[in-house]
């Protein structure tokens, strides 16, 4: 306040300032503060909007993959075709390939269409081909080989519809586009409409997508993420078994025991730098060391795990060292003061207190490794690899496999839009795994954190 505004004050006495009026300087400061708050809120809001868009688009695009279109077809397992000798000899039955089964299924579907009274210009059972997944024949054949006594009976099957029919029900395939599509015709779509009305073509939960193996380009309806989930699982076992003990041991040594000299400084700087090295560099290192030099099998989860261990180690070392550093030095003094050795002080007191941080860092490192794709490209854990479930532990580590993110990448590359949908669906599964791991990290943190 100036003297002019308060003329009754003498020049010598400090001007009286009422607390009820805010002076210009304070107003300016308050405005600056309000602006800063607004920036902060705007930044958070922008972040949230993008998060919502991300999650929304993933869900919107990917949820379809968790539903699949099936056709309920009674198939007459014709003995004349499947078991010509009539002796139910399993070897003879196995000689009939899936080509022997396809006409039976087509006939079955044709009969269903006739029985439902759907009018269609398609007059041959063979015309049903485009509506049935190529995998249906294998499904029926497997059932017959498992139980040869079914031959001669009419058995109800729930077979996969072709990906075009599936796409039609999921609004991915439209009538106007079908004209240019030689895989399906408008007439087929008419039949599908009729069969949906009759409850024969149904959309059901797609367990195969979560448990199944990858499929060829031409049958996306059959493809699943299951085998690559196992591939990722075996890789994570390798990463956990190697990076946790090595990383924690290295951090404890560096943080608690190593002399502080130029050499350890150099190591420290290098570890920090390694954490920022692009993952593809670790991939080519893994290729050179584990495959070309050590001659480990290509595409094996063991090699993938070793490569990802290289990538995860710096993360674990850095977070472990940070949590060791955060343990108050007074605890070390206390332990040494009662005559504990350095190692006893570390293992009895420092390590338990650092445990929540170490576990969180490890799980975050693992989650990072779980989502990593680039190094896997270089060691061949990508592409059309997964055809069968690994048979036992050894095969799980050593047999060629894929991994979740690599499988998603592979699907996203494929031409069929049905695979596009599956790529998004795969992302949902991957995110569920990552979220689970993060929740475990939070729970462990809560559990181990002692209050004092």
């Amino acid at each position, binding site marked *: 306040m100036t003297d002019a505004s308060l003329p009754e004050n003498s020049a010598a006495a400090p001007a009286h300032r009422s607390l009820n009026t805010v002076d210009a300087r304070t107003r300016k400061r308050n405005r600056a503060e309000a602006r800063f708050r607004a920036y902060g809120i705007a930044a958070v809001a922008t972040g949230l909007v993008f998060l919502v868009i991300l999650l929304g688009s993933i869900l919107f695009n990917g949820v379809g993959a968790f539903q699949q279109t099936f056709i309920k077809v009674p198939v007459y397992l014709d003995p004349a075709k499947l078991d010509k000798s009539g002796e139910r000899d399993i070897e003879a039955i196995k000689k009939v390939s899936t080509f022997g089964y396809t006409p039976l299924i087509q006939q079955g579907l044709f009969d269903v269409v006739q029985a439902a009274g759907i009018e269609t210009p398609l007059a041959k059972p063979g015309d049903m081909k485009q509506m049935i997944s190529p995998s249906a024949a294998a499904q029926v054949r497997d059932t017959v080989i498992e139980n040869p006594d079914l031959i001669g009976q009419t058995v109800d099957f729930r077979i996969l519809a072709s990906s075009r029919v599936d796409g039609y029900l999921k609004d991915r395939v439209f009538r106007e586009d079908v004209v240019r599509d030689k895989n399906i015709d408008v007439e087929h779509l008419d039949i599908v409409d009729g069969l949906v009305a009759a409850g024969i073509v149904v959309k059901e939960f797609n367990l195969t997508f979560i448990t199944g193996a990858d499929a060829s380009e031409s049958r996306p309806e059959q493809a699943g993420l299951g085998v690559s989930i196992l591939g990722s699982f075996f890789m994570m076992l390798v990463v956990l078994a190697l990076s946790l003990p090595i990383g924690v041991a290295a951090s404890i040594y560096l943080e608690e025991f190593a002399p*502080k000299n130029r050499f350890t400084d150099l190591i420290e700087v290098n570890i920090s730098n390694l954490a920022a090295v692009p993952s593809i560099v670790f991939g080519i290192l893994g290729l050179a060391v584990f495959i070309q030099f050590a001659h480990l099998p290509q595409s094996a989860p063991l090699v993938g795990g070793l490569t990802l261990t290289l990538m995860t180690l710096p993360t674990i070392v850095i977070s472990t060292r940070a949590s060791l550093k955060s343990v108050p030095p007074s605890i070390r003094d206390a332990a040494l*003061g009662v*005559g504990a050795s350095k190692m006893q002080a570390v293992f009895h007191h420092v390590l338990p207190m650092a445990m929540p941080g170490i576990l969180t860092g490890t799980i975050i490192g693992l989650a990072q490794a779980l989502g990593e794709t680039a190094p896997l490209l270089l060691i061949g854990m990508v592409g059309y690899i997964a055809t069968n479930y690994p048979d036992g532990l050894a095969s799980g580590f050593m047999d060629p496999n894929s991994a979740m993110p690599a499988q998603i990448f592979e699907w996203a590359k494929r031409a069929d839009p049905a695979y596009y949908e599956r790529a998004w669906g795969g992302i949902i599964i991957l995110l569920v795994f990552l979220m689970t791991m993060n929740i475990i990290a939070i729970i462990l943190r809560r559990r181990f954190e002692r209050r004092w």
Partner: protein
Amino acid sequence: MYDAPSLERNVDQKEIKFSARNVQVYYGDTHAIKDVTVEIEDNTVTAFIGPSGCGKSTFLRCLNRMNDTIDVCRVEGDIRLDGEDIYDKRVDPVQLRAKVGMVFQKPNPFPKSIYDNVAYGPRIHGLARSKAELDEIVETALRRGAIWDEVKDRLDAPGTGLSGGQQQRLCIARAVATAPEVLLMDEPCSALDPIATAQVEELIDELRQSYSVIIVTHSMQQAARVSQKTAFFHLGHLVEFGETGQIFTNPVDERTESYITGRIG
């Protein structure tokens, strides 16, 4: 203000516990302790006083080789405990620290139960052969620490849940539990309120019966209250060492006089 302490003085000649001769301590290039020679008696409370940064804590930490944990720290000279050189190559600092217990400035109980806090030392040194024996050691130590009555019903409660003064007495009990011969206390009351301070000081006076106690303190009143001998450190030098009563009433060195009358420090 600094009247002659009214504590009863034990002027009998006592056994020498620690004898330090020409001790030099360097932190890197800093010469922190300059040529300190001192003899510390058994069953006596010896106070180290002096302004901040004068090296009194550094010297204290030499006596149980806690300075070993600092990479840049170098100790020269000769420090003997009962006539044995504690910096001899054959001496394991772990054994030394069991014999020379330490209580720190800030109460630092382990984040464990009260019982485990006290039992930790005896456990790692194998002092108890059975649970009953360990129980007894813990009880004795907590009684020595004058905290038994307050915690006997909640030995399983976390040691960190106690009040500051209780925590410090727990730390003293923890130091006592390993049956040391010397207790080093690095400003044990600086984080405590006056009531807790009084309790700890009383305890120190009792501990004198069984141990040689060396206490670093900023408070000259405290040094006057609890100690029989006082050493005044200034800028790394041991300026004056003698009977507490004499130091506070009739200092020989003018730097000591300036410090105790509040002109430096």
